[in-house]
């Protein structure tokens, strides 16, 4: 009898101390992928999952059928939102290093995802983000002071001190609450979208999850329900190559793109250069139109790279070459849009520097304001009584009792 086969263990091609190797990332030529009508039957557009929609070419031109032909102000808006997100992240990271906030997660290198997708959706569409989508809030115009308040767990924190930093939500802005548990929001988004269709209303839902998170059962629940009921939802997999220390092949990305994950249900997938704002915008518009017109759900895979650490608790130099980002074939989304605008004579380096500076100031200003609202370490913060609220709609007797007990114990004045 022949030798029994061994188990296949995916291997990352480059590890610390080695040359970065992205040869596994399959690219298409900018402009090369067709743009089918939004009502094309899913069987006829399966190839979209295997190619990669790209609009910006090496010479910073927008090419091909997916060029969304954004107006100048839209482009500026995209650039501004991405830049603001990056500046916000950098500031918060600094604040973490200074011990002012307890935790942080940045979206460095992936800003195009949240910004361009948010722009392509309508403001009444409901967004179910993951923890790396701060750009959605910024693009929908949220005052970053609100976000900072949350990270500071101060008296203005919308989570009332109950969640770790970055677990934002924004009811008025139609942005759902972030759970610490990966992927749970994805089938919830499908349920929300189903309700919209049941009620005969127009808003659609959109939701985001990471490459690693696709392995969770909830992603499958989302695909199944979205497929069976043709829910008006856009499902977005942000493939930034890493899930903490584990690279995307451990979620099954080694054999087929994540965009293909729904094909077996008849959910069309479309793979897009996630660092190309124009491509991301165009693809999202296309998917949103499919949802809004009742054609059904779409799965978008946004190919990008997590340029920073997973979180402030992580040290990526232990599992990947330090200079990977430099070698990332799809570059930096901000730089690419900027160069496109410059080459179109809609932007200049000096304008860019000015914008940067203005945003830095704005964010610094916001930080001061937020700190005035208090911080976890130094207060003022919410009263601990509030800890017993919102477990239920009204505080039940046993929690009233526990609240009293805490009061009594604190009153005793002994060090706690």
């Amino acid at each position, binding site marked *: 009898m022949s030798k029994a086969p061994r188990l296949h263990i995916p291997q990352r091609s480059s590890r610390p101390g080695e040359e970065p190797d992205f040869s596994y990332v399959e690219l298409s030529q900018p402009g090369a992928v067709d743009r089918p009508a939004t009502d094309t039957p899913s069987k006829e557009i399966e190839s979209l999952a295997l190619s990669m929609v790209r609009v910006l070419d090496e010479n910073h031109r927008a090419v091909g059928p997916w060029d969304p032909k954004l107006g100048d102000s839209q482009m500026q808006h995209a650039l501004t939102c991405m830049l603001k997100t990056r500046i916000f992240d950098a500031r918060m990271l600094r604040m973490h290093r200074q011990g002012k906030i307890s935790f942080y997660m940045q979206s460095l290198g992936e800003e195009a995802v949240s910004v361009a997708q948010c722009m392509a959706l309508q403001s009444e569409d409901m967004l179910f983000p993951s923890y790396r989508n701060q750009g959605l809030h910024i693009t929908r115009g949220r005052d970053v002071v609100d976000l900072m308040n949350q990270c500071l767990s101060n008296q203005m924190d919308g989570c009332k001190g109950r969640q770790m930093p970055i677990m934002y939500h924004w009811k008025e802005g139609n942005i759902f609450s972030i759970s610490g548990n990966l992927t749970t929001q994805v*089938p*919830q988004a499908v349920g929300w979208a189903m309700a919209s269709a049941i*009620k005969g209303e127009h808003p659609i839902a959109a939701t985001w999850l990471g490459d690693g998170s696709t392995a969770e059962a909830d992603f*499958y*629940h989302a695909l199944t329900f979205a497929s069976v009921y043709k829910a008006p939802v856009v499902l977005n997999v942000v493939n930034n190559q890493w899930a903490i220390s584990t690279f995307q092949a451990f979620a099954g990305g080694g054999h087929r793109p994540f965009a293909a994950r729904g094909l077996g249900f008849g959910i069309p997938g479309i793979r897009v250069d996630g660092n190309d704002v124009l491509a991301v915008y165009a693809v999202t518009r296309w998917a949103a139109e499919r949802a809004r017109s009742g054609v059904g759900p779409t799965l978008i895979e946004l190919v990008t790279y997590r340029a920073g650490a997973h979180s402030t608790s992580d040290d990526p130099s232990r599992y990947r070459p330090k200079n990977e980002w430099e070698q990332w074939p799809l570059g930096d989304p901000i730089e690419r849009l900027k160069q496109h605008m410059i080459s179109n004579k809609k932007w200049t380096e000096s304008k860019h520097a000015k914008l940067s500076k203005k945003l830095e100031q704005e964010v610094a200003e916001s930080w001061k304001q937020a700190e005035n609202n208090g911080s976890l370490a130094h207060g003022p913060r919410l009263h601990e009584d509030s800890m017993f609220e919102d*477990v239920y709609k009204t505080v039940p007797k046993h929690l009233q009792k526990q609240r009293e007990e805490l009061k009594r114990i604190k009153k005793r004045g002994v060090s706690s």
Partner: protein
Amino acid sequence: MARMNMIQALNSAMDVMMERDASVLVLGEDVGYFGGVFNCTGGLYEKYGKHRVLDTPIAEGGILAAAIGMGVNGLRPIAEIQFADYIYPAFDQIVSELARLRYRSGGDFWSPVTVRTPCGGGIRGGQTHSQSPEATFTQVCGIKVVMPSNPYDAKGLLISSIEDDDPVIFFEPKRLYNGPFDGDPDKPSVSWSAHERGEVPEEYYAVPIGCADVVRSGSEVTVLTYGTMVHVCAQAIERMGIDAELIDIRTLAPLDIETIKTSVQKTGRCITAHEATRISGFGAELSAVVQEECFWSLKAPIVRVAGWDTPYPHAFEWDYFPGQERVIHALEQVMVYE
């Protein structure tokens, strides 16, 4: 007033609420065209249409997740889990999401889902159609846990659950669907029509969540129980001829401690009884509460009657089920002491 069995009463509760409130909808495995494997949703599909009575894929986690999303979008979903034994695939969505959403979002988001699910044994269902997992849910803050023992309460409590803006896990003791059951499998089965709680108004009414029911008042010992065991205990009390106070807990969370306290302070003795396994079953919480609240009144140790700490075995169902003998044995134990 009409005569209803528990299935009809539950059906009527959903019917009444779907009629009153267009945001109420039902979803679950086989609940639509077929009306559910126990027929609890029978007729609703025809009456309210395929957009309000949804057959779903067989994915309990997906059902809960979808229901949560619907609830966030203004609907009031009633999700059926075909057997309580199959609620575990939905456990994460219930514990980490449904129960926590209001809290973690500072009160901004919430989802008023009611989860209906048949529980308990006595129907030769073996280890995967007989479980009573209620205790596990009572430890999860943010959800309410209800288990009725008769048609009248079933309808009134289900209506309250649907109307409640907090999530409710609503357990239905399936052995009681067609009639009260006193624990003796050899007796001919009785129907609800002879039982006073089988009289059920056809229209809207509510039985409040959070209130225990003193089914029988007595002076010698307090029996704390719920679900099928209410009837078993009633018959055991009858047979013993003891003046016991029988309390149907009905809502396990939040627990009606006042009613329990008043009773045990009066009787000085207490047993708890449920079909679920004993270790860390809800009897443990009841026992802990009673000794905290009524320590100085207690004349004897509290005794817990429960299913054995094994899975529910098909062939030994009636050796497993905590029937009248076991209740009597417990009552005797607490009555020994003066």
